């Protein structure tokens, strides 16, 4: 095909420009606000926030207690609140119980503490199997749990989001929150991994 023009918009780019045109003309969106939202979710929120919540729960039993009783308030008190974090519940792993979070409907996820979900969390493969075959799914993530361990699967909704508090790794006695934070990965807070072991 001869290249007889300079610019070609990808069909999805053209569709988004069309949507932006319509919504701006009707006064429903403001391009500056759109840019601010993108900046927030590309650069400002991410799993580091959740890692700080978990590290505090490990280091401070009173905080862990507040997190267990009212996760929304405990997390908001650390400055992490906003969209898709309005109603939070923290679920704590124990030696007997492992928690796993999914959204079978679509992709509900606690944005203020984890940022936006990874691709696999949004994929039908994970969403359809996490409830029916959690042990297999976890094994595929490299997390093999003993048969004696109970796996609880939490299905997120538009109203309620979950944060897994993984078990504190052995060998971290006396560590401060900053050091503990580095052991808490995004996957550990979804429940597809354990917290990292101390190096």
């Amino acid at each position, binding site marked *: 095909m001869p290249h007889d023009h300079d610019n070609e918009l990808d069909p999805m780019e053209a569709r*988004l420009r069309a949507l932006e045109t319509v919504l701006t003309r009707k006064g429903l969106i403001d391009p500056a606000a759109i840019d601010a939202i993108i900046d927030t979710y590309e650069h400002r929120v991410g799993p580091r926030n959740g890692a700080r919540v978990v590290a505090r729960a490990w280091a401070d039993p009173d905080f862990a207690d507040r997190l267990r009783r009212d996760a929304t308030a405990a997390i908001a008190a650390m400055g992490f609140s906003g969209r898709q974090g309005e109603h939070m519940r923290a679920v704590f792993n124990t030696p007997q119980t492992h928690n796993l979070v999914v959204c079978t409907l679509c992709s509900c996820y606690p944005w203020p503490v984890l940022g936006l979900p990874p691709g696999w969390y949004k994929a039908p493969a994970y969403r359809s199997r996490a409830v029916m075959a959690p042990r297999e799914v976890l094994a595929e993530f490299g997390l093999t749990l003993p048969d004696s361990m109970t796996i609880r699967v939490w299905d997120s909704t538009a109203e309620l989001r979950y944060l897994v508090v993984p078990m504190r790794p052995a060998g971290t006695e006396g560590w401060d929150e900053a050091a503990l934070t580095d052991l808490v990965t995004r996957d550990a807070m979804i429940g597809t991994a354990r917290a990292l072991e101390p190096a």
Partner: protein
Amino acid sequence: MSPPDPAPEAPFDAPWQAQAFAMVVALHRRGLFTWAEWTEALGAELACATARADGADYYTRWVAALERVLQARGVAEAGEIAALAEAWARAARATPHGTPIALENDPQAAP
């Protein structure tokens, strides 16, 4: 000690995905729909039998859900969006390289 998730996945694979995401957040903030209504619309698109198992088409379906919600709310008809997208594509082809693409550059634009 290195921080966790040293190379976290970028949330968006293309700028249009970020735009689509932000539009929904902005419209929800404005009260055009509740978040429960949005997840229901998105869930319906994602549950479609042709959805890819690896989720690679997630944001394409996100946009389809947005268009359905806009249609249901009487904000924009599907035909209107499609026609404008065509206009944007024509405007892009008519715009010399190095110049910002403007809808006014559409050679078929109404005067």
